[in-house]
């Protein structure tokens, strides 16, 4: 934890001489902390006003919220988020774990492989979405290639299939983020104590058994951390969908972040857009608060032990 203050909390700004340091400390901190508080309050306030094209004063109570929650757009977007969130988080974590376990086997070319699995993280979601929209387009991507090879009945047209389109976002998302999960898992795998593994080996446990019984159980706090971060990505996903499907076909890949943008800047309804943004924030808090509480509880328990 943080160390004790060397000299007991003396006031930072004793006189004009300390003005430069006062400014240098407080201007960035207040900008940074202040904009979080003020902007959150501001958007929340707008969500209770009858604002349309421009923000106006007034009070309409929960009307924007009930309106948003009743639109087909929002309902579909939220259902999509549940599918996308679950599929993306679970599969990305699994693929990331697989990659980490492979890399952890002391194989040759470890550095090259690790760089290959992680490079998608360095490109923007716009680039990822654009490239995958070509690969998954049945008219010119993977399906076309396989058809041209002679397997003419081969179909891989999820991009234009209303029921499956959301999984194209999952695929692109896994490609982009699994290296990130891998990096975190690998750090965890490498920090498992060698004595534990040695003891298991002496007891005659094989490599698979060592993984399932010794290593993975110590990894689960990282698994949860990775899943929370990925879920946070999923809730905020916007660029990837814009570039890959634009929310279509129909509303098949609409997500809450797109609905917010749509209300605010396409339909010119700032009140409802703000209400949708607040609902997004609440969804996010629904994930982060339990996680934060769990971390806090753990830390307290560790401190006592």
């Amino acid at each position, binding site marked *: 934890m943080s160390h004790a203050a060397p000299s007991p909390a003396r006031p930072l700004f004793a006189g004009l001489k300390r003005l430069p340091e006062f400014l240098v400390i407080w201007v960035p901190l207040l900008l940074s902390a202040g904009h979080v508080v003020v902007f959150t309050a501001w958007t929340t306030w707008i969500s209770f006003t009858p604002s349309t094209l421009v923000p106006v004063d007034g009070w309409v109570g929960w009307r924007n919220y009930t309106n948003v929650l009743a639109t087909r757009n929002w309902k579909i977007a939220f259902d999509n988020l549940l599918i996308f969130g679950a599929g993306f988080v679970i599969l990305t974590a699994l693929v990331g774990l697989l990659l980490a376990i492979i890399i952890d086997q002391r194989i040759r070319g470890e550095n090259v492989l690790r760089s290959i699995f992680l490079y998608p993280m360095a490109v923007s*979601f716009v680039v990822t979405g654009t490239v995958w929209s070509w690969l998954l387009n049945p008219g010119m991507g993977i399906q076309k290639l396989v058809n041209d090879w002679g397997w003419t009945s081969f179909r891989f047209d999820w991009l234009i299939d209303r029921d499956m389109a959301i999984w194209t976002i999952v695929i692109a998302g896994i490609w982009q983020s699994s290296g990130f999960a891998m990096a975190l898992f690998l750090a965890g795998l490498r920090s498992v104590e060698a004595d534990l593994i040695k003891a298991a080996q002496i007891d005659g446990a094989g490599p698979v058994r060592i993984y399932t019984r010794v290593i993975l159980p110590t990894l689960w706090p990282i698994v949860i951390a990775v899943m929370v971060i990925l879920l946070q990505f999923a809730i905020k996903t916007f660029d990837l969908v814009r570039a890959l499907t634009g929310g279509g076909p129909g509303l098949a890949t609409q997500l809450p972040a797109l609905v917010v943008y749509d209300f605010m800047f396409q339909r010119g309804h700032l009140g409802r857009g703000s209400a949708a943004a607040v609902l997004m924030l609440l969804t996010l808090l629904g994930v982060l608060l339990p996680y934060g509480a769990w971390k806090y509880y753990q830390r307290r328990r560790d401190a006592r032990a």
Partner: protein
Amino acid sequence: MRDASLSRALLYAVAFLLAFLYLIPLAVVLLNSLRTAEEIVQTSMIGWPRVWAFQNYTAAWADFCIAQTCSGIRPYMLNSALVTLPATLLSTLLGAVAGYAISLWRFKGDTWIFALVTLGVFLPEQMRLIPWTIVLRDVGLTNTLAGLVMIHTVQGLSFTTLFCRNYYIAIPADLMKAAKIDGAGFFRIFYRIVLPLSPPILIVTVIWQFTGIWNEFLYGVTFTTGTQQPVTAALIALSASVADVPQHGVQSAAVVIAALPTLLVYLFGGRYFVRGLTAGAVK
């Protein structure tokens, strides 16, 4: 022993198959950037160039039409650079000082301030769109690169302060105490003690900020229009304008150019990139 070598071979097979799969999108876009539009239409997006169409790159860079402007991707790359470089430097510098103040000069309310700064990492961009629109209008920076610099600097402070604070907190209290007894003040200690210890975290922070701001799309598309847009927004506008007449070769070249800066940063600073990811996430 036979078993062991067999499973070893299997391991390598799986590893290389996966590596191949991860490289496909990159290979496809690189190859397509060197194929002509006719060739791509005739076959598919996946294939080896029959004739090497290097002219795709000159077209994508300098004279392809995006929306109504026919100047290629060049002005948008410049926009992205003019936003990303100042915002990265400013947010890193201010974040380092703020992280230093918050970790080594405890003061009243510091934990509260720090908690709020950290919240900024999680707050969705959607919660800030309308406030930023109004702030930009009131300070007269609507549809300007300076406006984007301001936004990315203020928002970036959440990350940079968090990174630096978590790093500086490990500086021994005795070192600070000794410096203070010697009469060193806030800035002197920063220059003489903290800054020389900082290169690792500053590299991580710069790489993280550069990648994040270069790749950002929502603010770019919301707060700027036309030739003021960053390159991510221009790519989306470009795919809209080629929807009528397919120009996938040129478009691929544009995608490669737009992705190049962050890929290069990753290639040369990958180690620090990973360290940033793990440092930001595990805490």
